[in-house]
């Protein structure tokens, strides 16, 4: 891996592989206006993110702080209705302190839907012009943070795409990159294998506890992280799916356990603990693949490698999601959505 990549340097020293202008709504009531602002720029690296809740929520505030100052982001437009609980000016000053251009539009103050959309588009136009003038500089693999996830897994996942991602992770880690794997609920049954790969005995203990927490969560909720489509793809049990999912982590030492939004402090392989601490309160921890991708991006992932057997079409704002197909049948059917066909491993071609 040579220094052929380029990235945009940010004030915290990190580099982005994209220079996205992000428009963020701060309550569901502002979603429509924010979506309309973004509409004419859909192929011009202007992305839409947001938080729907009306009441103040520390988790959401923290996620939005991390996402809006992600290295792939060059400028931010915040869209508020006005009466919601989100600390918009706290977020605005956090973004401004990172050196990024930032503006906040309050729909109730700007005079309503149409006026805010119009004003928002002109601000996005200015931000896009400003960010387009910035020049990327050389970037090395050691400056990358890469996440992986699987969705719509099948009987080929653990044989083709997942071990292939594991090999890629081993190479990235050897070159100094930080790599993140997650979904502790899909690592049930693999905890002792993972503990044996932990850099320290203390971390080994934390990893086992973290998977036990996930197992407890799922048993209270009455089912594992297993969708009907997994069985249609040849997977029969949670532990079989886990064995396959685990293969994405490769063979490197595990150097740390992080929480969503926490950045890996060094290069190396990290496990992301996506299950909340404490009593079972919030429903399924991995309610959707999108939520987990968002958490990995909040932890600084520049890119997400997504393996799929049934054919997931999930993508994301901020960081590109690379799709790796586990089988050639689905790859041929859904080629427009897939980036890599690992099904050739099973075909032997």
């Amino acid at each position, binding site marked *: 891996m040579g220094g052929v990549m380029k990235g945009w340097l940010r004030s915290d020293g990190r580099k982005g592989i994209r220079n996205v202008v992000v428009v963020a709504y701060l309550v569901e009531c502002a979603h429509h206006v924010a979506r309309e602002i973004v509409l004419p720029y859909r192929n011009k690296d202007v992305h839409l993110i947001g938080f729907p809740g009306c009441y103040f929520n520390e988790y959401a505030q923290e996620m939005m702080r991390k996402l809006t100052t992600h290295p792939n982001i060059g400028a931010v437009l915040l869209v508020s209705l006005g009466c919601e609980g989100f600390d918009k000016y706290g977020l605005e000053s956090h973004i401004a302190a990172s050196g990024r251009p930032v503006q906040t539009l309050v729909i109730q103050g700007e005079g309503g839907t149409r006026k805010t959309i119009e004003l928002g588009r002109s601000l996005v136009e200015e931000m896009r012009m400003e960010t387009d003038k910035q020049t990327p500089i050389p970037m090395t693999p050691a400056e990358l943070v890469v996440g992986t996830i699987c969705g719509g897994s099948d009987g080929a996942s653990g044989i083709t795409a997942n071990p292939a991602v594991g090999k890629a992770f081993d190479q990235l880690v050897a070159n100094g990159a930080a790599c993140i794997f997650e979904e502790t609920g899909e690592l049930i049954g693999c905890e002792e294998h993972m503990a044996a790969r932990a850099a320290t005995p203390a971390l080994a203990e934390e990893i086992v506890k973290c998977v036990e927490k996930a197992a407890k969560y799922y048993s209270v909720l009455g089912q594992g992280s297993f969708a009907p489509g997994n069985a249609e793809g040849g997977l029969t*049990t949670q532990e079989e799916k886990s064995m396959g999912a685990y293969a994405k982590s490769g063979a490197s030492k595990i150097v740390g356990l992080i929480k969503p939004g926490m950045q890996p402090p060094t290069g190396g392989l990290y496990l992301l603990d996506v299950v909340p601490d404490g009593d079972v309160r919030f429903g399924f921890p991995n309610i959707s693949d999108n939520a987990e991708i968002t958490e990995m991006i909040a932890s600084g992932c520049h890119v997400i490698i997504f393996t799929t057997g049934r054919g997931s079409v999930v993508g994301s704002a901020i960081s590109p999601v690379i799709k790796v197909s586990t089988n050639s049948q689905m790859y041929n059917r859904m080629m427009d959505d897939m980036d890599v066909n690992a099904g050739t491993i099973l075909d032997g071609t």
Partner: protein
Amino acid sequence: MTETNLDHRLLLLCDDDNVVVARTRLGQGTDVLIDGSRYIINRDVLPGFKIARTEISPGQKILKYGAPIGSASQEITPGARVHTDNMKSDYIAIHTNESDESHVI
């Protein structure tokens, strides 16, 4: 096990395993070579699905990747498909949509 003892349409992931994996679609009635013996596939099998390599008794662990992935819920004969109808998780039950079975692609 040497290559010639196993059908090229099947994949053995670990020597300890009692299942092999279909690399391609195998129709009901297809005869396949497993450990040097010929067996008849008992029902249509899609790529990535498991096929028994040995006699497996109820309660016996199913081994794939050299690791237990659940237990047999009934007697399984070599060449039979191994799935939700004849094995179960040792951890947590799964939810399937039986009505989707006929729409599988």
